[in-house]
């Protein structure tokens, strides 16, 4: 049997194709961003580093404290045993803060440097939902990693400090609240860094900016405050300082410090959103 090419049939098939199937959804974007986060090796080693730094420094500090500690000294310092536990459990997170700041910048600057951002924005032409999904995913996982780090560090410290008959309960509000606060601030640093990365669009520039704000700014403002007295009043409003005050309030209430931290994050993300929406990809 011979095959006949039917030209009229071909012409008949040329009615416009109508697409079908599921559309864009925020749940889908969250899943997409989670896939993006967990399919890069750097995510595993940065999060591992946060946990390792926290555990490692907790062990060191716990031993150091139990070695050099005697009851009258701590009493003189005004620290009770729960205070020591919180100090030990959260000491390593300072390093973790720098690591998640880098992770936050890279999560978006990596898309710009590789060109991935074009794929992302072509799929989400309204753009902002993609940014919010990235922020939500990074916030959630960084919070969990932070909580795992501090709670783990606390548990590690129990047997070591126990040799000096120091004890504390994880569910004591003076323990669990500072630990949660530390994990929360860690996650907010990551989110703040996503904003800076979006604004700067380059890994090197973004990392330099974020680390400058976290590390350098307190030092610089501190030095200025020696020359100009009123500059010292600015200190508590710096991102890093407000983050610390959130957990151990001194010049302002915890909730006030929390609002200051949120303001930093809001400015970073607000500027990022405005630029992302406006700029050519």
């Amino acid at each position, binding site marked *: 049997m011979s095959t006949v090419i039917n030209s009229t049939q071909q012409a008949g098939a040329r009615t416009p194709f109508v*697409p079908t199937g599921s559309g864009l959804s925020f749940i889908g974007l969250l899943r997409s961003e989670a896939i*993006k986060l967990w*399919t890069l090796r750097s995510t595993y080693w940065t999060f591992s580093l946060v946990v390792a730094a926290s555990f490692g420094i907790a062990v060191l500090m716990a031993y150091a404290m139990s070695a050099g500690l005697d009851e009258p000294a701590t009493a003189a310092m005004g620290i009770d045993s729960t205070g020591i536990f919180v100090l030990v459990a959260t000491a390593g997170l300072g390093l973790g803060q720098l690591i998640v700041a880098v992770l936050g910048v890279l999560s978006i600057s990596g898309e710009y440097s590789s060109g991935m951002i074009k794929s992302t924005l072509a799929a989400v032409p309204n753009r902002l939902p993609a940014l919010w999904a990235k922020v939500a995913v990074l916030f959630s996982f960084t919070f969990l990693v932070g909580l795992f780090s501090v709670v783990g560090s606390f548990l590690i410290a129990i047997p070591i400090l126990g040799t000096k008959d120091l004890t504390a309960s994880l569910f004591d509000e003076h323990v669990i609240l500072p630990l949660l606060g530390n994990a929360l601030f860690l996650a907010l640093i990551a989110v703040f860094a996503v904003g800076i990365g979006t604004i700067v669009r380059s890994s090197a520039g973004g990392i330099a900016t974020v680390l400058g704000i976290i590390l350098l700014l307190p030092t610089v403002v501190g030095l200025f405050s020696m020359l100009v007295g009123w500059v010292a009043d600015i200190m508590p409003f710096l991102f890093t300082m407000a983050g610390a005050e959130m957990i151990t309030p001194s010049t302002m209430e915890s909730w006030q410090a929390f609002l200051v931290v949120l303001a930093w994050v809001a400015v970073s993300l607000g500027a990022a959103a405005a630029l992302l929406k406006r700029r050519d990809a």
Partner: protein
Amino acid sequence: MIQAQSLTKHYGSKTAVDAVDFTVQPGKVTGFLGPNGAGKSTTMRMIVGLDRPSAGSVIVNGKPYHEHKAPLREVGVLLDAKAVHTGRSAYNHLRAMAATHSIPTSRVHEVINLTGLESVAKKRVGGFSLGMGQRLGIAAALLGDPATLILDEPVNGLDPEGVQWVRKLTKQLAAEGRTVLLSSHLMSEMALTADHIIVLGRGRVIADASVADIIASAAQNTVRVRTPHTAALASLLAQADVTITNLEQDVLEINGLTVNEIGDRAAAAQISLHELTAVSASLEDAYMKLTQDEVEYRTGDTHTEAEVAR
């Protein structure tokens, strides 16, 4: 269907796209041609909202791209091979893209098979060759089974088998009633693939017609004649509207006379001809003719360069 209306893009003082109007019809493969810097890629980026038009508008399948509820199902786009994070595997890249529109993983496997990426799908994209990167870009464009495909130089870096595959694929997609807009610098390939051609030059549409019409516009009645008596034939045929070029010692290229006229006159003058051929224009000839004044980045004349080198 893609409809552009006075679509304009300025970058600073430079105008990349200058008030272009065109319609890309469904059911056809439309070729998008133009010299480097003519504005093809910029136009494609504006269609999917990556660049914001300075003026004018472009709509895809009836709406501006960003108003669609399922953008990846409306338009599949391959902009360049480097729209992928190099640290991620091809499979995971496609999975992340699919997740945005809740496209099932089975479709990810489908496009991987379709583009022949099975053996490298789990490898990191950073190590991909240009051709593999192109295949991944095409796979991503096909992910949403879209009604419109925009492919910027899809055959760039592909092996001959891949080039042929892209040709068949685009023709098949168009036959299914989809809109296919395709750019390429390979004219012979475009002549085989496209039904319709839009030519851009310095940000303007300089031609918008079927491939046959474009080629016909460049046809010049060129006739090639091989004869041992070139001088005699040239003087015989010389007249105001005829140009005669001596290509080789015994070959003339003649514009302005038909094959019949030349053959009859030569016979009457008893000049023997060893070859008499009508040279038909190719898409490449037509393209070169259309864009000869529009080339932004022209290469130096090889003749003068050789002299300078000497």
